């Protein structure tokens, strides 16, 4: 254990990993506690970026790029639009008040400790397989083993599209 840690400390990749982990966790914390809604949203940008970095460390190249494309380029933009559209904005610092921070901190702290305990104490059956390109494998899974989820996800997307369009359209009747 100690020897492994010593090796890890000497490896520069460990430090890069720690930097990504710090960015991810730190910005997630900002999302949770920031007093400004816009800062929360932009901290979320860093979190998504950091998670993409973690995917890179897990050799999931396709997912890292998909994370950037969907989360940063899509969901985050949607959230930012939501922030800008649904506010009676008077000031650049949108307030983002929170309630019951103590109760929330206790519950989520307990959750974190429990999950971390389980993660660290379980004897995982870790196996090594060669790091290889994942995009081809994912494509193979989409047309083979996971064909049904692949097709059903298009139905899900259709439902989301129709539902979101309907919700966004609805009110104008009254206006």
């Amino acid at each position, binding site marked *: 254990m100690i020897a492994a840690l010593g090796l*890890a400390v000497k490896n520069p990749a460990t430090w890069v990993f720690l930097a990504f982990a710090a960015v991810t966790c730190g910005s997630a914390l900002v999302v949770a506690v920031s007093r400004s809604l816009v800062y929360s949203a932009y901290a979320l940008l860093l979190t998504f970026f950091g998670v993409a970095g973690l995917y890179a460390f897990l050799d*999931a190249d396709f997912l890292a790029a998909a994370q950037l494309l969907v989360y940063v380029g899509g969901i985050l933009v949607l959230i930012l639009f939501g922030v800008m559209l649904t506010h009676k904005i008077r000031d650049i610092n949108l307030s983002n008040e929170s309630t019951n921070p103590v109760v*929330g901190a206790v519950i989520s702290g307990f959750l974190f400790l429990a999950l971390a305990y389980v993660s660290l104490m379980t004897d*995982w059956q870790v196996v090594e397989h060669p790091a290889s390109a994942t995009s081809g494998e994912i494509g193979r899974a989409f047309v083979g083993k996971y064909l049904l989820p692949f097709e059903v996800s298009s139905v899900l997307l259709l*439902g989301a599209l129709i539902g979101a369009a309907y919700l966004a359209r609805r009110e104008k009747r009254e206006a």
Partner: protein
Amino acid sequence: MPVVGLEWFLVIAAFLFATGVFTILTRKNAVSILMGVELILNAANVNLVAFSRFVKPAATLGPQSVEFPLQGSAAHAVYGQPWIAGNVFAAFVIVLAAAEAAVALGLILGIYRTAGDVDVDEATALKG
């Protein structure tokens, strides 16, 4: 050889999950709550991909004998590498997250129109 072990990723994912839960519990703003949900989904994704990278795939994926099929073989074509399952799941979670974000923001917009605010404590009526 991976740089760092599985536990590191699991702990980071647990932290993301906890911050997501904290956000959902404490925020009043609906958009903030959505951000919390996105954090939780990301945490789940990190877990899935980490297990996909590190943990031995269950033999139930494909025939028992095919654990790491050869590149280009028929078994490879049909089943792919079994360890990819976690990555594929993560891809589907991304699909889910996108769909959820679209519908949730549509709902938030609806609440904003009827209530004039996106405070979830105020949105108590089911019909606008």
